[in-house]
């Protein structure tokens, strides 16, 4: 342990890298599956490649303070590009790889990008397209040359060529690299992450070396991460969570980052690597559980019986055993049996056998989902944070896990609530500023140095923070009762049949909801009942499906009826949307958060139908296909009423 901690002392990322390379040159730093084989870069290899890359950039004229765009799937070379830019005192600007050129234009222009290191032809095409309007993009460097052989656009270069250039430059300017790394300050901006832009244009969040290193050190100590840990990095590099886990903590703790072969092979790669430390948004855990459930439904009767009865045991005592709480001897024995027969093999199939710590964040996680993973012995925890706070505000301590809270303030973080319930945060991890947006910076950081997160929360009796909703989304019904749309939507989404929900009710008499069904779960449900359907639209319009969703809505209403003031927010009417909400249609952000305002505007006709008392409403919707063409879907959408329940006071828990 002390060896590991000793490594984590430098105050900038490039210096951390050279420390690891000096202290444990042969330990694996990065891995990637290529041509069916896991290829490894040791810390020595990594440092050498970063040096060559940085020198190549310097030869092209990249200077201190310049921004380097990094676009692509999780690849070792791209993680090295972060360090290469930072070695020269530059700023890494990772961008979402699945954004279309038009969406990229804003960030490319805002960050005044002259240099970009990208993964492949797909990204090169997008940048060349963007260059038509943004001639400032001078140098585009690509890692994978496939399909690019005949491109001869000026400034286009392979990473291989950049390294060669870098080696030449290094030979001609000995000592330049080391001097540049030594000039770096902990207070320099190291990375700029663009917020997903749930509202308005994306903002560039400037984070310093110090901010991310503080956040990473806190996490590493909190969860006892060591150099022999392994993570699988498959979440977008532009997302703050990936930057903290796969870059900042990677360089602080010195563990190994593994990159999957392709986005489609993540589940296989997970099994092969068997990570010890794992991070995923709730939807990943959800789709894994949905798959398990579906496969168990199709399994033979004996297997199903075995699974059901042993999962019942796990549900009863699994989480308590993990938290070290007292459990009867009989349950202990049954659990041990279950571990041999069900939980162990299941974890192995999912690639989760070796997980010591797993985190989820980004959205609320359903209680059943959360309990499922904990009951089979996976130490799944929640954290709370945002881009502006390096994804580091609250963490759940081992043994004190609650599904509806996000834990206590992390080491080195001060958290307090404003009068309106807004969560405010102070500490080294708070952003330096929004790029070129002093107005936004002034608005979100107050005179005392507190960052206003925009989330509304409450502390429970144990001092755990519970996030209810976005502060600005918390509205009021026309009766004056509080209305927290996210809170209700999350309750709906906890049902496996519901994929997305959008609730409305601010300044209205009652609450209504748009529902997106989960095609996998509802499709399977329909198949087992011999309900024939041709696709999403058809299935969504079935009366049987409406009845199914109605049950879910009414269950939520029954729950809300017990929650004091929120009992007024019971859902009066709902409809099932004829298309899935999609980031390509701007209905969601790239991180899959619903843009409620945009949806309300786009589907105004449906909203009128909901509040106008109609039972069927016609709508024409424009959609964009993956290849960029657009078309429209017309549908008559049914609207159903849901039963509401009289408010009851909660029985003493």
């Amino acid at each position: 342990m002390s060896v590991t901690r000793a490594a984590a002392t430098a105050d900038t990322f490039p210096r951390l890298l050279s420390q690891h390379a000096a202290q444990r040159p042969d330990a694996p730093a990065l891995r990637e599956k290529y041509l069916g084989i896991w290829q490894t870069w040791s810390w020595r290899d990594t440092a050498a490649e970063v040096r060559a890359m940085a020198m190549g950039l310097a030869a092209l004229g990249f200077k201190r303070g310049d921004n380097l765009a990094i676009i692509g799937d999780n690849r070792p070379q791209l993680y090295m590009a972060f360090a290469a830019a930072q070695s020269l005192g530059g700023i890494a600007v990772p961008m979402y790889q699945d954004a279309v050129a038009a969406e990229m234009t804003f960030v490319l222009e805002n960050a005044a990008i002259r240099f970009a290191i990208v993964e492949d032809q797909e990204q090169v095409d997008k940048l060349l397209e963007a260059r038509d309007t943004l001639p400032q993009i001078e140098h585009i460097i690509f890692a994978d040359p496939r399909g690019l052989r005949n491109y001869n656009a000026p400034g286009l270069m392979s990473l291989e060529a950049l390294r060669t250039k870098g080696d030449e430059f290094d030979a001609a300017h000995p000592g330049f690299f080391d001097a540049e790394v030594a000039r770096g300050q902990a207070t320099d901006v190291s990375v700029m992450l663009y917020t997903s832009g749930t509202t308005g244009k994306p903002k560039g969040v400037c984070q310093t070396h110090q901010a991310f290193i503080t956040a990473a050190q806190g996490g590493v100590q909190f969860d006892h991460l060591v150099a022999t840990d392994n993570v699988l990095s498959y979440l977008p590099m532009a997302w703050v969570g990936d930057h903290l886990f796969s870059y900042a903590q990677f360089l602080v703790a010195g563990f190994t980052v593994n990159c999957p072969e392709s986005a489609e092979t993540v589940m296989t790669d997970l099994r092969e690597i068997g990570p010890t430390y794992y991070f995923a948004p709730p939807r990943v855990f959800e789709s894994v559980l949905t798959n398990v459930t579906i496969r168990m439904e199709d399994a033979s009767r004996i297997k199903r019986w075995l699974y059901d009865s042993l999962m019942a045991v796990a549900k009863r005592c699994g989480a308590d055993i993990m938290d070290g709480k007292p459990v009867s001897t009989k349950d202990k024995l049954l659990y041990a049996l279950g571990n041999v027969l069900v939980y162990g093999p299941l974890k192995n199939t999912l690639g989760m056998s070796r997980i010591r710590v797993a985190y989820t964040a980004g959205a609320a996680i359903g209680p059943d989902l959360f309990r499922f993973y904990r009951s089979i012995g996976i130490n799944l925890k929640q954290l709370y944070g945002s881009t502006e706070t390096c994804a580091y505000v609250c963490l759940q301590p081992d043994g004190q896990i609650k599904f509806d809270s996000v834990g206590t303030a992390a080491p080195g973080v001060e958290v307090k609530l404003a009068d309106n319930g807004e969560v405010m945060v102070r500490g080294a991890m708070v952003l330096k500023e929004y790029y070129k947006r002093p107005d936004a910076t002034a608005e979100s950081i107050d005179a005392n140095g507190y960052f206003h997160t925009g989330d509304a929360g409450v502390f429970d009796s144990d001092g755990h923070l519970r996030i209810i909703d976005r502060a600005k989304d918390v509205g009021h019904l026309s009766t004056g009762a509080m209305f927290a749309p996210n809170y209700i939507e999350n309750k709906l989404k906890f049902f496996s049949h519901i994929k997305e929900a959008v609730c409305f009710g601010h300044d209205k008499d009652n609450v209504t909801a748009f529902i997106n069904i989960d095609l996998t779960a509802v499709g399977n449900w329909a198949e087992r009942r011999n309900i024939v359907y041709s696709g999403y639209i058809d299935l969504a319009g079935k009366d049987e499906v409406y009845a199914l969703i109605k049950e879910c809505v009414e269950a939520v209403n029954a729950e809300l009826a017990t929650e004091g003031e929120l009992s007024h927010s019971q859902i009066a009417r709902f409809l099932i949307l004829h298309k899935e909400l999609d980031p390509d249609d701007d209905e969601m952000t790239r991180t899959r958060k619903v843009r409620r305002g945009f949806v309300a505007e786009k589907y105004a006709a449906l909203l009128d139908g909901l509040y106008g008392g109609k039972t069927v409403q016609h709508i024409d919707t424009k959609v964009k296909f993956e290849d960029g063409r657009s078309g429209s879907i017309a549908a008559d959408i049914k609207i159903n009423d849901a039963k509401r329940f009289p408010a009851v006071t909660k029985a003493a828990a």
Partner: protein
Amino acid sequence: MSDDRKIGDVILKVDNISLRFGGVKALTDISFDVREHEIRAIIGPNGAGKSSMLNVLNGVYTPQEGTITFHGEVRKDMDTHQAAENGIARTFQNIALFTGMTVLDNIMTGRNLKIKSSFIEQAFWFGRARREEIENRKKVEEIIDFLQLQSVRKTPVARLPYGIKKRVELARALAAEPTMLLLDEPMAGMNVEEKQDMCRFVLDTNDQFGTTIVLIEHDMGVVMDISDRVVVLDYGKKIGDGTPDEVRNNPDVIKAYLGAH
């Protein structure tokens, strides 16, 4: 973007080919040529003799009349083994894969001709067998990477959707490192997205490996987009030959195939 791709000399030439099955005339007096590195399409309505023509090219059928000149060598017919040894690989209209085997194993079968080690060496895994297996696996992995089949590497072919099976077939053909690839309706029965992917792969294959491609295709849009030159057959006769634009404006072709368009 692939404009500087070099189209070379004629490498395959057929002259006055006629093929009969009993009294049925499948092909009558067909002549055309294929140049190195080009994408050459054969189109025509159902029953026009497209697949027969392809089968003549790789030696499945022996024509009654006419000659085939391949790399300067004039012959009456091709032999399937010779065709394969001369670097001709093909895919089939109705997928012909080993459905019980994995994608990886299926593609490995495409390396058959490259294996020199003896049965004994292979059975006991010594001598050349080991080295060859590693070399062949590497080549196959490169093709898996090229055609983006990583996620189904270990999946039995029977469990794959149609569009992916077609891609596996192409992969197996590519595993033989062919100089000429015969594709029989590579995009038949695919949806728009699968077709686009397949087009991309055909173009990339041609671009990256310089493979000469002869393809039969129904989808006119696809043919006109990706081919350098097109032969049009109707009732076993050649009614047009030229660049997509020339063919598109040929009155006989318009009458026979394109209809009113």
